Structures are given as structure tokens and as C-alpha cells.
């Protein structure tokens, strides 16, 4: 039905033309889900935008055929192309938080969309909208339809988005990372819904994702892209089970497995960006070994409760506080890695911040290495724990000061904690540490924006290590990264843990990653501990029903 032949998309710029997509061909039949998978920069979204005719200027289709049914999409006038959007091709975007107009009720948005494409009375459109919302799994649709987008949760909002894409009965829906912003439980429901719509309504889907687990779970056909070119294409089971192209093989190998633990990830050789770590940076290693880093600590938190002030709804009532953590206790033994998992809003990051001393708990005690660890407000600037506990943040794009050179970023812990007073020695040490995390030493004079996400995360690791930490907290350290880059960072963290025996708290919503990294696992749900157990035992036989549910919902390879 959709036939794309030799599609080439170019973006002219001052430095010549950049080819985002080159000679891509694919076909999608009615009722079929066609997955486009690849890492960032692979051109997945560009293909979707080209099909629906919404390429960001100055990008343009330079070559190729785009045919939907018997309509040549390239030969349409702008008005005709706009009339097809919604009526025959629709789109679902990644983030349901931002893809609905916040100022209009969902009723207005649904009716408006239907009336844009057919001659339908408002009441008939409303009746159909309610029916559609019910079908898609929104209960009490007749009442809920007058609500504004912000009154729906993330998963419900994505259902509304899907309803909006569906309300005009399109033949083709392009879903651009439709579940990336959602929790696993919600993701699984949304994916089921998409599969159902393809089967029952015979709608063709193009599913754009970076997550191979999602591809495996619902697609019929898959096209693997890299740098705007097709690496491999075919029926999903065939491509995933016996990948022919080396890139596909490497990509699959670098995806963390939920079903077993690997010692090291295979990193696609062609994407390895620098010399493998550990041969260089001997000075940095010696320096770390000379400090107290190799003398790991154990951490115990007991009955930690955190409450955040809620919004006041009435003059006469006190604002109700929101309990982010409810009497959470956890023990991390010295030299081990504790994985902390849970859905968004379960309090994972809050717990990490309480330990780091960024959030004040309203109740509870903490001990580090047997000594009491004061909570945020009582933990002074000079407290040793400010140095011994270090954190690696999720987003490497915002966790490095954009106006500081890498040398300044890395040197900071050294002078701040009085570890090295001599500027020249500091610089040498920073260079050695960069080598140890697998970066070129000349990076020291560059700015953060000159590096890719993976490189930046290496820098963040180096910064944390330069404080000679004894307890390292990694808060979703790889969730902003591509799988091959993720594999490298995880390898790096594993190596560091092996060599220095650091105690680590590894926070992630990605169970597969946690399995690869941790010795023990703690599961949080709505601010409470559901289960704590040995990692392997947890993944083979989870005790709590909630853990079983989480595991079964995670897409696997």
C-alpha cells in the first residue's frame, strides 16, 4: 500500500548538502507494522517526515518515489498534501506531554480534526469521538472528553493522541517513538493497542524506534538503518534471529539482555570511538589506588520518608503533601552494586538525591561506613560525605557546565576537596583520568558541546572519579544514550567497579541494564520498597507480584 522507492532526503547547509536519507526503499501493507530501527542520526524520523510531507525546512526529498495506494505523494500540491494528512496518513509523536494543545479540551481537538476532513455535524463527531475513546480504553469517555490534556496521565494522554490520529480513519499511521516516554507497564498496553488496531482495522503502521525490544514485540517487518542507509531489511523474526549484516549483529549484541548476565558487552567495532580504556591512564589508576577509593564503604538507609509540599486547592484547607518516599530502608554492602528499579514517580531518583544530600528527608536515618550520615541540611559543605559520595547524572547534555572547558570541569573536585593543590599536577591528573575513561587527553581544552553524548558521559564518570569517591550513584546513566554507546559506558562502569571495588547504587528503569550491572536489586513502587533480593534470584524468580509484572512487561530480545 505504501511504497517507498530509493528515497533520498537532503538538507542543504552552508557547508554543502547533508544527505540524511539515501536510497531507502520500503513497502508497508495494510494491517502490517513496519519497524524502522537505528541509533540517533540514522534517519528514521526523517523517513517518517518525508512520507507525511512534513520535513523540517530546508530539508527536501531529492530523489525517489513515494506512493500511497495509487496516489503519488511527491506530485501533490501543498494543499492536496495537507488534505491527505489526517485523512489518509496520520502520525503519533513521542511525547504525549507535549503533543496535545494544552489550551483546548480533547473534545474540541477531536471534533476539529474530524470536521477538517469530512462533512460531519458536531454532535455526530462528538458521538464518534466518545465511541473511539471507549474503544481505545478510556473509561467514562462521555465525561472525560471535556477534560483538558493536563488532566490525563501520560499513558492516557498517549491514548488520546492515538485517538486523534485514528479519528479520521487513516490508512497509514506513522508512530515516531510512541512509547519512549512511557513506563514499561504503560508502554506494553500502548503497544498492544497498536497491534490490535493493525489487526482489526487493517491500518498500516510505520513504527519508528531505537528500542529493539519494541521491534521484536510487535512489528512484522523491520528495516535497520544506519547513517541514512538501509543496513538490513526483512521479516522481523528473520532479521532478529539470524542477522546477516555485521551492523545488525553488532547492534543486537550491544542490547542488554534481560534473560542472562554478560560479563562484557560486545561493542560494534566500527562505532568504538576511542582506544579501548584501561591500557592508558596508569597515573590516574595509581592515584585512585593511593587514595581511599579502594577502601569501599557500606551504606544503610533506614525508614527514609520524603514529603513534598503539594498544591493548595482551597483557602481553608492545608495543602496536602505528596509522599515521595514512605519509610524506605535499604542496605548496600561494601564493594557491591545495588540496582534500584521502579516506574517513573516511584521515588528512585528521590532516594538517590537523599543519599547524595540534595533532598531533605522528613524522617529516617542513614549510615555510611558505620558512621551516621547527616541528611541534606545538616550535612555541611565540609562534610567528608560530600566528597566520598559522588553522582553521575542521567543527561550528559545538561550535567556539564557548557561554559567551562573540560579541564575546569574535571579539576574542580580536585581543588574543591583539597585533593591536589598544584595546578600543573591537577592538569596532568585530569589528562590521565580522561585516558582512563577512554578519551583523548587533548579533550582537556575543549568545551562540552564538542563531544557526543557518550563522550560526555565518560567525562561525567571521570569527574566523579576525580573526587576519589567511595560510593558512586549512577542515576539512569545511559538512558539518554544509544545502545552501542550505552554498551561502552556500561563496560566502563563494570571495569571500574572490578578494579576499584566501588560501592555503587545503580538507578534505572531499564531492567535489562540493571541485570547486567547489579549484585542486588531493590524494587520501588509509589515510594515504597516492594522487594529486595539477590540480582540473579530476582531475575529468575521474582518474589513480589509487582516485580513479576514489571519483568513480564519488559520487551525482550
Amino acid at each position, binding site marked *: 500500500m505504501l511504497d517507498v522507492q530509493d528515497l533520498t532526503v537532503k538538507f542543504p547547509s552552508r557547508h554543502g548538502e547533508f544527505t540524511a536519507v539515501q536510497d531507502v526503499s520500503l513497502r508497508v501493507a495494510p494491517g502490517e507494522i513496519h519497524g524502522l530501527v537505528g541509533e540517533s542520526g540514522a534517519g528514521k524520523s526523517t523517513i517518517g517526515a518525508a512520507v*507525511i510531507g*512534513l520535513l523540517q525546512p530546508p530539508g527536501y526529498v531529492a530523489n525517489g518515489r513515494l506512493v500511497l495506494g495509487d496516489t503519488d505523494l511527491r506530485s501533490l500540491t501543498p494543499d492536496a498534501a*495537507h*488534505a*491527505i*494528512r*489526517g*485523512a489518509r*496518513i*496520520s*502520525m503519533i*509523536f513521542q*511525547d504525549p506531554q*507535549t*503533543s*496535545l*494543545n*494544552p*489550551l*483546548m479540551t480533547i473534545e474540541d*481537538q477531536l471534533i*476539529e*480534526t474530524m470536521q*477538517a*476532513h469530512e462533512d460531519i455535524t458536531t454532535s455526530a463527531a462528538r458521538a464518534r469521538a466518545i465511541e473511539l475513546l471507549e474503544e481505545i480504553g478510556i473509561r467514562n469517555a462521555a465525561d472525560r472528553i471535556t*477534560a*483538558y490534556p*493536563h*488532566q*490525563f*496521565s501520560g499513558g492516557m494522554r498517549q491514548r488520546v*493522541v492515538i485517538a*486523534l*490520529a485514528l479519528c*479520521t480513519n487513516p490508512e497509514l499511521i506513522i508512530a515516531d517513538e510512541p512509547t519512549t516516554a512511557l513506563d514499561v507497564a504503560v508502554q506494553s498496553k500502548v503497544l498492544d493497542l497498536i497491534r490490535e488496531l493493525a489487526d482489526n482495522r487493517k491500518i498500516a503502521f510505520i513504527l519508528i524506534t531505537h528500542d529493539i525490544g519494541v521491534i521484536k514485540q510487535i512489528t512484522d517487518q523491520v528495516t535497520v538503518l544506519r547513517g541514512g542507509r538501509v543496513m538490513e531489511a526483512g521479516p522481523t523474526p528473520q532479521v532478529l534471529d539470524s542477522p546477516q549484516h555485521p551492523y545488525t549483529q553488532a547492534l543486537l549484541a550491544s542490547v542488554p539482555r534481560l534473560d542472562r548476565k554478560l560479563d562484557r558487552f560486545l561493542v560494534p567495532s566500527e562505532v568504538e570511538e576511542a582506544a579501548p580504556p584501561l591500557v592508558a591512564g596508569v597515573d590516574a589508576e595509581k592515584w585512585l589506588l593511593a587514595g581511599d577509593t579502594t577502601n569501599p564503604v557500606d551504606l544503610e538507609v533506614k525508614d527514609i520518608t520524603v514529603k513534598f509540599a503539594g*498544591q*493548595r*486547592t*482551597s*483557602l481553608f484547607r492545608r495543602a496536602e503533601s505528596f509522599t515521595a518516599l514512605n519509610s524506605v530502608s535499604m542496605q548496600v554492602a561494601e564493594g557491591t552494586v545495588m540496582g534500584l528499579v521502579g516506574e517513573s514517580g516511584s521515588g528512585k531518583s528521590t532516594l538517590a538525591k537523599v543519599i547524595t544530600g540534595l533532598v531533605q528527608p522528613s524522617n529516617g536515618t542513614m549510615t555510611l561506613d558505620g558512621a551516621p550520615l547527616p541528611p541534606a541540611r545538616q550535612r555541611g559543605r565540609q562534610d567528608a560525605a560530600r566528597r566520598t559520595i559522588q553522582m553521575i547524572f542521567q543527561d550528559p547534555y545538561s550535567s556539564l557546565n557548557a561554559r567551562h572547558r573540560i579541564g575546569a570541569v574535571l579539576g574542580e573536585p580536585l581543588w574543591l576537596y583539597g585533593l591536589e593543590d598544584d595546578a600543573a599536577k591537577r592538569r596532568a591528573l585530569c589528562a590521565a583520568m580522561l585516558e582512563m575513561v577512554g578519551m583523548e587527553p587533548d579533550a582537556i581544552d575543549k568545551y562540552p558541546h564538542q563531544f557526543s553524548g557518550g563522550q560526555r558521559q565518560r567525562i561525567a564518570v571521570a569527574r566523579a572519579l576525580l573526587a576519589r569517591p567511595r560510593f558512586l550513584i549512577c542515576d539512569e546513566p545511559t538512558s539518554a544514550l544509544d545502545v552501542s554507546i550505552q554498551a561502552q559506558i556500561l563496560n566502563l562502569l563494570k571495569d571500574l567497579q572490578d578494579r576499584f571495588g566501588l560501592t555503587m547504587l545503580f538507578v534505572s528503569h531499564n531492567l535489562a541494564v540493571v541485570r547486567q550491572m547489579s549484585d542486588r536489586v531493590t524494587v520501588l513502587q509509589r515510594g515504597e520498597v516492594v522487594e529486595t533480593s539477590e540480582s540473579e534470584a530476582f531475575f529468575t524468580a521474582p518474589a513480589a507480584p509487582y516485580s513479576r509484572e514489571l519483568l513480564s512487561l519488559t520487551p525482550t530480545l
Partner: protein
Amino acid sequence: MVYLILKRLLQSFFVMLAVAFLAFSLFRFVGDPVSQMTGVETSVEDRERLRDELGLNDPFIFQFARFTGDLVQGDFGFSYRTREPVGEMIAKRLPATLELGTFALVISLVVGIPAGIYTALRPRGFVSQSILLVTLVGVSIPTFVIGIILIFLFGVQLAWLPTFGRNGTVDLGGWSTSFLTLDGWRSLILPAMTLGVYQLTLTMRLVRAQMMEVLRSDYIRFATARGVPYRQLYFKHALANTMVPVITIIGLQFGGVVAFSIVTESVFQWPGMGLLFLESIRFVDIPVMGVYLVVIAFFFVIVNLVVDMLYVAIDPRLRVKEAA
């Protein structure tokens, strides 16, 4: 909602109290009121008696309480210069300034918002670039120069419009308005244009920047992908979202237009509060200056309150959350 209004009212109360304190300090401590009121030949005893009568020997806090009490009751004291009650002087001048400010604001909105939308939708077009260039020149020239240019062009060269003063006013129960006669309109146009140009540029650029940002947002892309007609896309989806922050700025601007119409009023000899304020400064007429300060602050507070209400009316996210 009620809570929000009450909170804002309480904040406004403290703002007004602070302003009253400033006005009082001005009144009490800048120069000696007694020597302002009396001549050189007044004897020391008479001065002391006057000081006593006026209550200037009372403790500071009593004086301040009396001052604010009088203000609240509408007793603004007497001008040193004209011996008239300040309240009456201000009341006489207020309509002129408010009408000038309102009309200037209307000009800036009626021209600025469509121009902003246009330049946002066709950012690279020749017309857009021309508009941007012209308004850049407009905002770079000081207000009084614009006023003088307008006077020269329309008043002197073309002789279409009067160059100064406020003519053709009609008295509507204490409020003299220019809006009811042709002469009134004619004398309003030039000062209002002068005052409005800067606001117009600001409004236009703000609308343009906001609109361009909104047009890049996901919900506009999604609406485009659903084939929502462009007219609705631009004027319903995009414009409403554009106006949320713009309203705040426009509100503040209106306060500013009224407060800082001093320059325009003096260029056009417009008998408004700005001109009154200038005259008061020239004659060190401190009671008038103090009351002017209070009135303008009150005006700002009211405008802000209205803006906050509008904000809630436009954006459902600010309304009290219903059970989701």
C-alpha cells in the same frame, strides 16, 4: 481561584503600603514642608505653631498612619503650588492620561499583534523583513524625537492635525472625554501614535518570537500531521498559546504607558498626569508628587491583578485541578 485572588489582593495590599511609605517619606523628609509653605518673613513662633497644627511634631509612626488613613479616605492633601486639593487636580488630569494610554495601547495591539503573526508566519518574506527593519528604527529613536517628527510632518507640513493640547472634550459627569468629538480625536491621534510606537514594536516582536516558538512545538506539528486547516492551526491553536505570555507583558506595558507618558505629554502639551507631574517637580510641589506616585502604583497593581485573572481564564492548567 478564590484563593489565588485573595493571595494576590494581600500581596497588592503590601505593595501599596510600601508605596505609601515611599510617598510619605518623600513628603516628610525631602525638604521641610513648613519652609515650603511659609515665606521668609514668617516668624519662628508662627512656624512652630504651624508645625504643631500640621502634626509634624508627632511621632513618625503616627504621622504615617494619619497619612495612609487620609489616603484611604480619599483625602490627598493640598498642593503647595495651587492650594487646590490634590485629589481634584489628579481627578481632572486622570481622564486625559488614561484615554491617551488606552488609545496608544489599542494602536499597539491592533497593529502589533497582526504584524507579529504575519512576520512569524513568513519570517523570511520581504514584507516581514521590511516591517522588522522599520520597527527597529522606530524603537531606536527616542520618543520625543518621534513626537517632533510627527508634529513636523502632520502638523506643520501637511497641517492635517493639531500639534498640541487636548481639544473638543465633552464632560461626562466629571470625566472629560476626547472620544465623542472629531476635534477630540484629531488632537488625540498624534500623541497616541507617539506613545504607541514603542509599545507596538515590543508587542510585535514579542508576538513574533512567541508564535515562532509555538509553531515549532509538538502539538502544532501533530495538528499539522492531522490535517487541521492552516487557518485554524494558526489562529486558534498557535495564537491562543502565543497570547498566554504576551498578555503579561502587555499588561505591564499598559502600566508603563500610563506611568511614562510624561515625555509624550510634555512634547504635545497634553494636559494629563505626566504634565502635572513635571510641573510639580519644577515647583517642588511634593504633595502632588507623592500622590502621583501612589496613584500610578495603584494603577499598576490593578493592571497586574487583571492580568493574573486573564491568565487563569486562558490557561486551564492554572485552574484548580479537578479529579483526574
